[in-house]
């Protein structure tokens, strides 16, 4: 089976199944069983089948040498095989472009030995399913761009979504009958009483899964944008699921509006790319035009063209866009001229502009990711979004939707110039620190996890920003598993206690052991627990990779060393607040006996998914190389999530680069971080930070050697700062919300007084005219009509006498009429010629 | 027969009249003597079922003259008529009932071609005529000027009209298999071993038979469907006000109808005059060229047929003395909710079965296999009626629909 044929079909199927489920539930939801209980099963079934298909698709890329993404011409260029001794650095060229005429093996002399032992970076499968329209050079299509990252994300999203669907079937069972919402008080003092919305929940979940998968599989930026917005609207629906609650509807609005800000930047970025490069597609598309096969280069090939050995070079289109003045003045944009323009990187020269254009595009796209992934300064919506039901938090706000931002940064990684990457790294760094500190003081169990999410997303951004593409993506995958696990565990706790406040819990371990120990696994995973240099939980590997990457970046750019230190500090805080959460919830003595007495383990349909996810949270980071002492890699080759991500590493991004605007900015190759000098340090640091955070939490919240209250009192101002979330909401309120409201009121006043007055005057005049019209209508036209009617009436009265209503008389009429008719006819016939 | 008589009787039309009279007398004897025997039989059967002996004295052994004695008693009774009665209708009613019941025998063959009048649409005719019996009952009920009688008559009317639907549907199934409504043809088709009987043709006919029998019981107004004369509720139902001879004529009509529907069942489902084994053939009596032999064969066939009818009537008696009477709503439910759908489904099933497996359940079944092919039956059966109008007619009669379909199909092919 040719993967290039099979994979698009498989993934399309998995992608469209949730849409089908959504459509079904939209139309038939309320009629599906009692109160729509079958809707849950339909949605779950759809996503389960999608998951199975995705996992099956994963097998096409699972085996590192399956040649899944290689074109058929690949055999001719077997030189690119990873065991090839001549590590001359042309692997990428060969492996990714099978075009024999063009393959220029002589080029690309500078290679890097580090890459040689890795799986080949192989060409993604790109193409179109369906063209929506063609407007000149603009083709809007539903296309795909599939590499191992896509398949991996598909598997991850569908798998977690499946677990969450099962879990939600149990969690949302309250919605199966009429609900009394105790958090909503109506004007008459009663609590809100409303019908259950079970089916609607699953309808949104299905649509959400469809949208998320759409982002993952999207083959062009138009599609990305469409599904990006779909994800946004789904998140709006789901956060505002309890729409009657003021807090929930506010949170939904907040999430939506904050995302809008990010998306505005994103549109700028996408348009900058499209406007200058003239294509939406990511990958190279081959299609038939007038009987000839034409290959149109996609975005990534334009930015990192083969001719430039996949280095990031400002593409021709951007140079032409930057040189608009020169072209308008009559300069012919020939190839030599463009090369000349591109070279001029002095201030106020064309090349400089062109480079800036690339920076703007990158920053714009990143802006969207900032919104969606809740990075500083747009992180404020995510904690509020915890108003949605917990399965939503688990799916939307931990594992998938916020991951979309990170995924997009990963997808556009080839387009980002070093300066943009630096911005990304710094943003990530700030975010991870801010969020982690806020998480220390939060007492709402879901908010702790929400801030933890923001913080971990910061880690991913940091990793990507310091050039660690694989590290960032790896953390994305592992984090998805343990964070959805943590959220679902917290949901289970909330389900049992009917409160979010950790201060009212405690000692629940005895009441709900399954939840407690699966959550412990999740905490250990996010902390990065493990034995250095041997084995650990999934977070151990991904976090180590990030720290190592940051450390190697620090080595190249000492002035940005703070990135590494903040990340390490963040690791301490992470471990601290996670175990604070766990100890407060599950350990110690119960603090609220009423709640404790009523607590109970969740039903099986809720904790079975927890166990499944716990297993993955522990093991998803493993690869066969981690068990080399066991010889597994001989048996199965080298594979694991990391190896799969290695396959998908964008072409050319492994080269060390440096900034153009900031000339001191140096980016090492990602493989450098595997060097022992960075790797060992990072691993030790990670272990040390995790342990210290854990011990601190142990001391404060389990053994109570340190009193939390004392610490709080001691650091009063800082505590205030943290408990108010660094005053972000207040600042935004003062800076943006209040001025907007003020402006709005002024405009309303203007509308009411000036415009309404004008309209009133007009209406008065119209009324006068209408009055006149009315007189004519009444006396002249009505008179005519009445005359006709009275004539008709008179005739009718006259004829009425014939209708006696007597059945027998009618029979007589008929007979007499028949006889006389015959008689007349025969007379005429007899008298006629 | 008329032709035979013509040779001896001077005015030729007298021959026809005499022949008709002979036929009529023969048939009326079946009804009248049959009623005598059946009333005696019913008494004996009910006695045995209720663990007593029944009549034992009159006429020596078994009390076999009991009915005759009863009849004599009835004749001598006073003929009463209520004051408010509608005289004409009151007098007409028993005769209408009896005529309807009796007219059915006109088309009922007692053996191969031993039939009063061989009709193309005999099945239909018998059902139609038997359905008319209800008129007598209704008119009797009305004319008696009695509430009980009227109630009984209303029940009868509702019941009979309803039960004619499934009854007709069941009767159509054998007609469909035979491709003819001529009872003689239908009987001839079941010639041979008992496996050729239509009741064993396929599972659906088997079901159909039971539905037919239930509906027939209901349509001749026998227990457990005898709502019209429910003595525990309506005194005696429609014949409350009748006495003497008129009353006995109603009874004759009832037993006549029982015999007629049993006979119809016997021909439609149980091979009519054909025994379970082709004994007449083995004895060489099936040879129609020899009048004496064929007469003997037909006589044996008639005995066969009579036995089946008597068995059917006895079966109805058995049912009567076993099952309690239904309520009127239960009667209607049985008809409309059970019998009709089952009959419809069986009809459909039998249609499909006949379409896919024309030979029936037990293959090979040469008899109608040949008919299906549209060929003239000249193997096992000589042309059915040697004295019929013409050979062509016989051909056409037995050919059935299959032949016509193939004709039409051929025509269409030709046109294309």
């Amino acid at each position, binding site marked *: 089976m040719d993967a290039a044929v099979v994979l698009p079909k498989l993934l399309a199927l998995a992608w469209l199944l949730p849409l089908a489920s959504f459509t079904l539930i939209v139309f038939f939801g309320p009629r599906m069983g009692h109160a729509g209980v079958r809707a849950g099963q339909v949605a779950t079934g759809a996503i389960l089948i999608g998951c199975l298909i995705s996992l099956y698709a994963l097998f096409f890329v699972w085996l590192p040498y399956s040649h899944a993404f290689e074109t058929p011409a690949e055999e001719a260029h077997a030189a690119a095989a990873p065991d090839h001794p001549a590590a001359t650095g042309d692997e990428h060229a060969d492996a990714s472009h099978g075009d024999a005429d063009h393959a220029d093996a002589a080029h690309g002399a500078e290679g890097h030995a580090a890459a040689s032992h890795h799986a080949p970076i192989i060409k993604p499968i790109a193409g179109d399913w369906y063209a929506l329209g063609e407007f000149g050079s603009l083709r809007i299509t539903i296309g795909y761009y599939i590499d191992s990252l896509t398949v991996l994300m598909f598997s991850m999203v569908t798998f977690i979504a499946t677990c969450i669907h099962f879990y939600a079937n149990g969690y949302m069972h309250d919605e199966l009958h009429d609900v009394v919402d105790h958090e909503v008080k109506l004007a008459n003092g009663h609590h809100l009483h409303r019908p259950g919305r079970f089916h609607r929940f699953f309808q949104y979940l299905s649509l959400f899964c469809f949208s998320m998968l759409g982002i993952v599989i999207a083959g062009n930026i138009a599609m990305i944008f469409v599904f990006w917005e779909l994800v946004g609207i789904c998140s709006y629906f789901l956060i505002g699921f309890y729409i009657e609650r003021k807090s929930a509807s506010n949170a939904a609005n907040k999430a939506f509006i904050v995302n809008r800000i990010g998306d505005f930047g994103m549109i700028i970025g996408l348009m900058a790319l499209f406007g200058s490069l003239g294509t939406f597609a990511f990958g190279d598309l081959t299609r038939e035009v007038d009987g000839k096969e034409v290959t149109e280069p996609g975005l990534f090939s334009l930015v990192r063209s083969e001719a430039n050995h996949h280095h990031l070079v400002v593409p021709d289109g951007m140079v032409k866009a930057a040189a608009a003045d020169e072209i308008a003045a009559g300069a012919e944009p020939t190839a030599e001229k463009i090369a000349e323009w591109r070279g001029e990187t002095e201030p106020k020269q064309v090349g400089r502009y062109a480079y800036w254009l690339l920076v703007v595009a990158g920053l714009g796209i990143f802006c969207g990711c900032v919104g969606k992934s809740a990075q500083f300064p747009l992180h404020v919506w995510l904690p509020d979004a915890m108003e949605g039901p917990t399965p939503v938090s688990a799916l939307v706000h931990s594992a998938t939707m916020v991951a979309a931002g990170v995924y997009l940064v990963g997808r556009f990684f080839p387009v980002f110039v070093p300066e943009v990457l630096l911005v990304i790294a710094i943003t990530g760094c700030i975010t991870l620190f801010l969020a982690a500190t806020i998480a220390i003081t939060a007492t709402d169990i879901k908010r702790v996890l929400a801030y933890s999410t923001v913080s971990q997303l910061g880690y991913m951004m940091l990793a990507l920003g310091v050039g660690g593409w694989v590290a960032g993506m790896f953390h994305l995958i592992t984090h998805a598993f343990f964070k959805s696990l943590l959220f679902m565990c917290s949901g289970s706790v909330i389900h049992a206690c009917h409160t979010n406040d950790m201060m009212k819990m405690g000692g629940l371990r005895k009441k709900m052991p399954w939840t407690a120990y699966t959550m412990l696994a999740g905490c250990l995973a996010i902390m990065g627990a493990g034995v250095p240099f041997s084995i650990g939980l999934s977070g151990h590997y991904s976090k180590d990779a990030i720290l190592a990457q940051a450390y190697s970046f620090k080595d190249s750019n000492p002035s940005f060393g703070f990135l590494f230190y903040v990340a390490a500090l963040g690791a301490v805080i992470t471990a601290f607040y996670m175990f604070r959460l766990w100890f407060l919830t599950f350990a110690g003595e119960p603090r609220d006996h009423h709640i404790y007495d009523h607590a109970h383990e969740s039903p099986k349909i809720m904790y079975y998914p927890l166990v499944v996810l716990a297993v993955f949270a522990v093991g998803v980071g493993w690869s066969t190389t981690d068990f080399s002492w066991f010889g597994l890699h001989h048996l199965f080759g080298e594979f694991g999530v990391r190896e799969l991500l290695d396959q998908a590493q964008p072409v050319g991004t492994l080269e060390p680069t440096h900034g153009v605007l900031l000339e001191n900015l140096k980016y090492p190759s990602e493989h450098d971080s595997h060097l022992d000098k960075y790797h060992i340090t990072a691993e030790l640091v990670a272990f040390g930070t995790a342990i210290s955070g854990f011990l601190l939490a142990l001391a404060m919240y389990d053994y109570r050697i340190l009193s939390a209250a004392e610490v709080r009192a001691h650091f009063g101002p800082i505590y205030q700062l943290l408990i108010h979330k660094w005053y972000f909401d207040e600042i935004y309120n003062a800076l943006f919300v209040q001025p907007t409201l003020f402006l709005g009121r002024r405009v309303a006043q203007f509308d009411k007084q000036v415009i309404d007055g004008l309209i009133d005057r007009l209406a008065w005049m119209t009324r006068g005219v209408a009055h006149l019209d009315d007189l004519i209508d009444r006396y002249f036209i009505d008179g005519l009509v009445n005359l006709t009617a009275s004539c008709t009436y008179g005739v009718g009265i006259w004829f009425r006498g014939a*209708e*006696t*209503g007597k059945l*027998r008389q009618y029979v007589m009429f008929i007979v007499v009429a028949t006889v006389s008719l015959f008689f007349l006819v025969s007379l005429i016939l007899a008298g006629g010629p | 027969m008329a032709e035979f008589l013509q040779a001896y009787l001077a005015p030729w039309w007298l021959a026809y009249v005499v022949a008709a009279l002979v036929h009529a007398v023969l048939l009326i004897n079946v009804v009248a003597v049959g009623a005598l025997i059946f009333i005696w039989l019913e008494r004996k059967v009910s006695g045995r079922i209720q663990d007593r002996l029944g009549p034992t004295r009159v006429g020596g052994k078994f009390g076999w003259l009991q009915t005759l004695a009863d009849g004599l008693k009835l004749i001598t009774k006073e003929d009463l008529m209520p004051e408010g009665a509608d005289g004409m209708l009151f007098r007409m009613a028993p005769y209408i009932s009896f005529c309807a019941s009796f007219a059915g025998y006109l088309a009922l063959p007692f053996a191969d071609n031993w039939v009063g009048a061989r009709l193309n649409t005999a099945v239909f005719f018998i059902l139609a005529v038997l359905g008319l019996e209800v008129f007598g009952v209704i008119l009797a009920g009305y004319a008696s000027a009695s509430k009980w009688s009227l109630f009984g008559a209303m029940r009868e009317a509702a019941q009979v009209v309803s039960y004619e639907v499934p009854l007709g549907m069941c009767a159509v199934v054998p007609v469909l298999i035979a491709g003819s409504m001529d009872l003689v043809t239908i009987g001839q088709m079941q010639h041979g071993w008992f496996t050729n009987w239509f009741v064993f043709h396929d599972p659906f006919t088997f079901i159909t038979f039971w539905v037919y029998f239930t509906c027939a019981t209901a349509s001749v107004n026998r227990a457990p469907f005898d709502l019209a004369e429910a003595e525990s509720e309506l005194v005696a139902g429609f014949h409350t006000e009748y006495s003497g001879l008129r009353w006995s004529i109603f009874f004759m009509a009832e037993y006549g109808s029982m015999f007629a529907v049993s006979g119809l069942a016997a021909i439609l489902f149980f091979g009519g005059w054909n025994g379970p084994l082709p004994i007449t053939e083995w004895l060489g009596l099936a040879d129609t060229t020899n009048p004496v032999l064929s007469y003997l064969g037909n006589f044996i066939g008639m005995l066969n047929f009579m036995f089946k009818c008597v068995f059917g009537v006895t079966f109805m008696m058995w049912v009567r003395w076993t099952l309690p009477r239904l309520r009127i709503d239960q009667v209607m439910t049985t008809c409309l909710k059970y019998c009709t759908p089952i009959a419809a489904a069986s009809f459909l099933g039998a249609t499909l079965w006949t379409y896919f497996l024309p030979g029936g359940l037990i293959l090979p079944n040469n008899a109608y296999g040949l008919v299906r092919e549209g060929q003239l039956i000249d193997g096992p059966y000589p042309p059915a009626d040697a004295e019929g109008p013409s050979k062509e007619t016989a051909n056409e009669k037995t050919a059935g629909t299959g032949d016509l379909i193939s004709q039409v199909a051929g025509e269409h092919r030709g046109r294309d």
Partner: protein
Amino acid sequence: MNLLTQPVGVSHYLIVGAIMFVAGVVCMATKRNALGVLMGIELVLNGANVNFVAFGSVYLRPEVTGIGLDGQLVALFVIVLAAAEAAVALAITLNFYNNHSTVDVDQADELKG
């Protein structure tokens, strides 16, 4: 003309049909009982049926000029539809009887002009 010895023709049947038809019409025109009117209708339909069958009979007219089977088919349809008509008419009558406690058609003149 001796009816007993001469063969009958279509006309004879038509006369019977005409008499039945007219009897039906008169019945409809004179009976006050709704069911009587209904019976008149049945008679009218039957009179028509006699005509159809007579025209279609091969015993009366040569097959070439006769209408053959069509006569019988139309008669069949008439019979079946008459049954349907009777059912509906009876339902209407019973309804009328339920609402007005009478079957006198002269009283059903609420729609008079």
